[in-house]
């Protein structure tokens, strides 16, 4: 997947979790949590969805790498390069 595809995929998963999420003002380098009212349960949902879709196992200690949209893309790019 390309960086843009990964970005779109993450936003699509977030939209499934929070149907009221607004992405227009989203700063990709600021924590998603602060901008979209996501809590730790929501991040768990993202992790589980990534595992379901791409068989991707993300260990708990690496959850912080999903903090911002840019850090998500950076973390996932090498892991999803063959998808």
């Amino acid at each position, binding site marked *: 997947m390309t960086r843009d595809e990964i970005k779109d995929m993450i936003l699509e998963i977030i939209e499934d*979790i929070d149907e009221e999420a607004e992405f227009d003002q989203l700063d990709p380098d600021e924590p998603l949590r602060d901008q979209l009212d996501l809590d730790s*349960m929501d991040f*768990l*949902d993202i*992790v*589980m969805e990534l*595992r*379901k879709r791409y*068989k991707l*196992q993300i260990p708990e200690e690496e959850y912080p790498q999903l903090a911002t949209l840019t850090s998500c893309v950076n973390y996932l790019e090498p892991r999803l390069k063959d998808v």
Partner: protein
Amino acid sequence: MAFTPLDKVGDRFDVIVVGSGLGGLTCANRLARAGHHVLLLEHHTRLGGLATWFTRNGHIFDVSLHGFPYGMVKTCRKYWTKEIRDAIVQLKNIVFDNPQFSLTTTFSREDFVRILRQEFGVDRAVVERFFTTVAGMNFYDDRTMTTRELFEEFFPGRSDVHRLLMEPITYANGSTLDDPAITYGIVFSNFMNRGVYTFEGGTDRLIGMMADELRKNGVTICTSARVDRIVVEKGRTRGVAVGERVIAAPAVVSNAGITNTIDKLAGRDAFSDDFLAGFDRVQVNNSSCQVYLGIRKGESFDDVGDLLFTSTSPEFSSEEMRDMETGSRTFSVYYPRTRPDHPDYTVVASMNANYEDWAGLDEEAYGRAKEAMVARCLDDLERYIPGIRGRIDTIESATPRTFHRYTLHTRGTSFGTKFEGLDISRSIFREVGGLFHVGSVGIIMSGWLGAINYGVIVANDVDAFLRT
């Protein structure tokens, strides 16, 4: 509800969930939605665990539907259905009445800030700082500070303020001033978010909707099926023994209490000495007593509030609240609006209780103690609904023995374990491959919201295991 009889259940599943409390139900649903083949086994004839109800003389009594935090709205939408979410409604009148103060509140942060300033005369900056502190507390913070120390830091010597802040939480999860402050902060902040909510249609409707959703997602449900043991071989989970059968699965999620899971279902032999040493330090929480009152058809009473925290005790004391002759009880009042399809007036009085106080009584003493408890509840309720005695046609009561009989929980606990139980529950799958636990543990994973969210957290662990 018609479920699958045990002899018609298949021989092999991806995961077997043992117990159908809200944590077990949610874990099963989440795993089925993720594509796994799930079997749910329940020893009782109905699903729900402590999220339960019973009928007497045409009345439906809710056992644990007393009010949950607003977080249930999001949780039910994400992990259950929109229909379940849409049935959540606010309980707007929460009443406190005790020798120190009497007031009515929405139990929201805004209203509590107002009350603490106007009625208790606490400085605004202190109140704001307290709320910000507890809202910022999380699981990984310092665990050595107790709730008592937290209260003394912000409201020194103010036993009235301590009571306002603590009493509802003690009823909600059995915690005391000596438990870790973070458990208080997490639970209290959940409620303070937007107030207290309930489920329109009652527990029976909720559990019915959950059962429908589980079946829709392909979960095989089997009730009256008491699991004898979880089969563990060479450090790995192989399945469960139930009745005359062994059903195979690489993963088993126990929604039995953590103590029963280790001592009875898996058996202590399956665990290392180190793990057992930690496990043996786990304290089981206290149990409850309840008195259920049904009002004769055609009779009614005025709205006196939805949830009444009442006490005749001069100050807050969790020991007093567990005493057999406690003067502290909540009244959950159910009006016709609770079940629009089955309009009725019922009242459930709930008290905290020690299992040991009730367990040792002979049948005669037990009967007398129950009668005395009912009489005390009626005396207290007369103060809020005068003439209620003459309008009641049904009285039932429950004690720690009753809770033990229906849930099988160690010492009839109604709130799982103290804080240390959470680590044991979370690490059990590192001891025995494929064995997981979900259920009330650690104070914070208790109550309806805590149980459901914990079901989701454990489902994530199980999913990770099954996909490895």
